[in-house]
């Protein structure tokens, strides 16, 4: 398989400087800027928009060409929305026909292919296993759908989180339409595929390229499978050791926990694992993917360097602990995951939330109070007799100082709460009660 050979060759060529945690010089920044500019220029022709041939399916996503024959990496939920027959649009507006190949809806990785004959502009695939927290990356795509008035916008950021389901999170901001678009390393190699976003502008999820590679053969042969569930905790079997997650030349063992598989097999802190279950491993993330395919109780052959010695051993994987060995960045991931489950509602306009509904649009009066600009029919505001033009002076006996404090006050209440409104209409003042409703 060509892509595997390619990736092995890349492994050998890799050499990355440690992510910087100190202030850099302008020259260092310029060196990085130069790389970003070069990558943006080089990869631009390969970043395509993906649409359905069927005008009744008006979704649009992105993709990136990785083989000259027109093979495209994209997101599973893009081809799920477009159907099998695709229109591939290049940044310069040229079009080609394409078809959807297989996709893993669980990881959100997908493939597509240009069906027209041609020598298509392809980019290289890199290694997400090699990427470390803090490494810089570049995201591209066709946000908002294909737009002939601009090229795919370039966004740069850093990788700051990795989940065990094969997701990378970067601070490259994404929006609708970017889905399926590529995340590049500073050499212009694809290391991830844009997948989804959260309220926090730094929460941009990408499918790790090596996770996509795991499903390569299946995707080439089959249609889409799995269901859309992103879980940062996939409950992998346990080794009982802590590793250097930035390992590049074999996985370095930092700490071994008593009475767990690693210590039972005689693995010691300082050992460097270079072979795992028959596969050469250079990085922690690669080894993690291998463990992810195993079950507790499976016996694994491991080869490691201990000083100048080479040691072979066998270990039996344990059940995942309920609370895994919590390490700082995993704890954070968990915290973040909990946050995700919490209500991000206030920031999502189309969200149904437990917010009180009043039903009046308020505007600035230029002075005191808030002017009612419009009242929704049958809303609590309408029931309380408010009409456009009324000026709200007080809410629950608090002076209203503009539309924002008024909305904030209303927002602080619950559906079902009563609110006393003092208004001015012309020269006369009125007082009325409204009962807040549930926003629907």
């Amino acid at each position: 398989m060509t892509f595997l050979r390619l990736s092995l060759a890349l492994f050998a060529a890799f050499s990355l400087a440690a992510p910087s945690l100190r202030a850099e010089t302008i020259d260092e920044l310029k060196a990085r800027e130069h790389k970003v500019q070069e990558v943006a220029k080089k990869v631009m022709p390969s970043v395509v928009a993906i649409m359905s041939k069927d005008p009744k399916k008006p979704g649009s996503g992105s993709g990136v060409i990785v083989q000259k024959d027109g093979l495209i990496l994209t997101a599973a939920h893009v081809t799920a929305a477009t159907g099998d027959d695709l229109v591939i649009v290049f940044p310069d507006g040229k079009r080609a026909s394409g078809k959807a190949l297989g996709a893993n809806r669980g990881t959100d990785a997908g493939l597509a292919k240009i069906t027209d004959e041609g020598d298509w502009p392809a980019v290289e695939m890199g290694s997400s296993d090699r990427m470390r927290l803090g490494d810089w990356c570049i995201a591209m795509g066709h946000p908002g759908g294909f737009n002939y008035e601009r090229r795919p916008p370039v966004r740069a950021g850093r990788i700051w989180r990795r989940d065990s389901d094969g997701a990378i999170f970067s601070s490259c901001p994404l929006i609708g339409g970017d889905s399926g678009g590529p995340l590049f390393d500073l050499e212009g190699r694809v290391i991830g595929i844009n997948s989804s976003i959260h309220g926090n502008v730094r929460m941009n999820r990408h499918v790790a390229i090596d996770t996509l590679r795991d499903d390569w053969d299946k995707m080439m042969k089959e249609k889409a499978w799995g269901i859309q569930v992103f879980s940062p905790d996939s409950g992998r079997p346990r080794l009982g050791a802590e590793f250097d997650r930035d390992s590049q030349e074999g996985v370095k063992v930092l700490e071994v926990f008593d009475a767990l598989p690693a210590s039972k097999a005689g693995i010691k802190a300082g050992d460097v694992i270079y072979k795992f279950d028959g596969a050469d491993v250079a990085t922690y993330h690669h080894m993690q993917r291998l463990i992810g395919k195993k079950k507790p109780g499976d016996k694994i052959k491991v080869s490691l360097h201990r000083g100048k010695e080479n040691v072979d051993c066998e270990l039996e994987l344990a059940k995942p602990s309920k609370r895994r060995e919590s390490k700082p960045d995993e704890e954070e991931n968990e915290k973040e995951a909990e946050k995700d489950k919490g209500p991000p509602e206030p920031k999502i306009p189309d969200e149904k939330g437990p917010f009180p509904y009043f039903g009046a649009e308020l505007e600035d009066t230029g002075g005191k109070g808030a002017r009612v600009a419009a009242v929704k029919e049958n809303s609590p505001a309408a029931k309380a007799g408010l009409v456009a033009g009324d000026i709200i002076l007080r809410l629950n006996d608090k002076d209203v100082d503009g539309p924002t404090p008024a909305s904030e006050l209303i927002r602080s209440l619950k559906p079902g709460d009563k609110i006393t409104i003092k208004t001015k209409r012309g020269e006369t003042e009125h007082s009325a009660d409204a009962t807040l409703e549930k926003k629907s």
Partner: protein
Amino acid sequence: MKTRTPILAALFLAVPLTPALLRADGEKPADAPKKEEAKPEDKPKPPKYEEQKSEKPKAAEQEKKEEPKKEEKKAAPGEKPKKFEEQKSDKPAAAKEEKKEESKGPSAEEKYGRETAEILKSWEPAMDEVRRATVQLIRDKKDIAFGCAVHENGYILTKASEVEDKKGVLLTGIEARFPDGMRLPVKRVDVHRQYDLALLRVEARGLKTMPWDEKTVPVPGSFIAAATPLRLPVAVGVVSVAPRNLDDSQKGYLGVRFDEAWKEGVKIAEVTAGSPASKAGFVSDDIIKMVDGKPVATIEDFKSVIATMRPYQSVKIVVKREKGDRELNPTLASRPNAGAFGEDPRNTMSGPLSNNRRGYPDALQHDMSLEPNEVGGPIVDLDGHVLGINIARSGRIECFAIPSKTVKGLLSKVGEGKFNHPELEALREQRKNAEATLERVKKDLDALVKRINEAEAPIPAAESDGDEKDDKK
């Protein structure tokens, strides 16, 4: 379309391309239902904004220091404004860095963020000159925008809608805080609505002015920072898209939707009712071959040509039909501006956007995550070159900045306290076309009126009544 997964509340990125987004010239239909405009002030403020409040004590301190100075000014109203002297601020660093030190150990998100203390600090040398021409606009102890000093006699350029109420009246009590901490009240002397720029004035002389750089061509991927009067930038990012025209109203509009799957040229899938295309007789399946004598090969070729033409301009288009080629002569209309319609609601979920955020005739797109009250200041490259002025936070992924060259064009009369209006030339040309169209329509109208009058004219008495009735049917 699913917008959320049940578990992680992850929002997928596949945008439903509504027919509006697919419409031929890229424009939205004029009769599109208007979505309510997102109101940032009704939304909870993001953490970044809250953090800024913690800067208050610092601002208050500066305020105290400045108090005597202000009184001095008031005491001598008739006197000429004092020469503004640049002082070197020896304050350790900008707020962000201090905040960092206060917090208990950074999370991965902060440690590996795009705007860590270390990264902002790396930019310090590039800020050195430009920050001296940058001001912080404040009102009621709150930061409301940045501004650029653009003339030594006290003129300051900023984003108009951030210093005005919704009716365009200047907010009261705005002050400009200079890099040395000096605070002066501002007056407004002019506004450029199209670019949403305001020209303010403070009573000061000898201001250091913004060194707009017209020569540097920003390319996608160029590193940029949003300068402040302090030593460190408020945000950093990269140029996402080279400068382009965002003013759809100045772009020609034909009103057709193309067959996206058709690869052998430009095939019309649908003609918008009432559009210039339908009036000129375009029909579905027409294949567009030539525009004003030039062949067009792709949909984008065609769209680009039409977009650079002006509304009311007449254009010759040759289409291929089964029965042979035909020349049609539509008169283009003005492309409806997108407005809030079609905007992805996910744009506002990561924090508020600027109220005024579209339609600038020349704007560079970048990927900083600015708060609405962080625009109005300069963007600077790693050499300290000023590439433009930040004009809007327009989406989750995008901010717009007006390039320096355009800013300089708008400011060619700044010494007189007003904006230059280079865009008027284009508008006048558009008016000329509109007048010509009106003239044609008037002629048509006259002819119609004449025909109607003729038809309804009383018939000479000699004719019979019966004939008249038949004619009317």
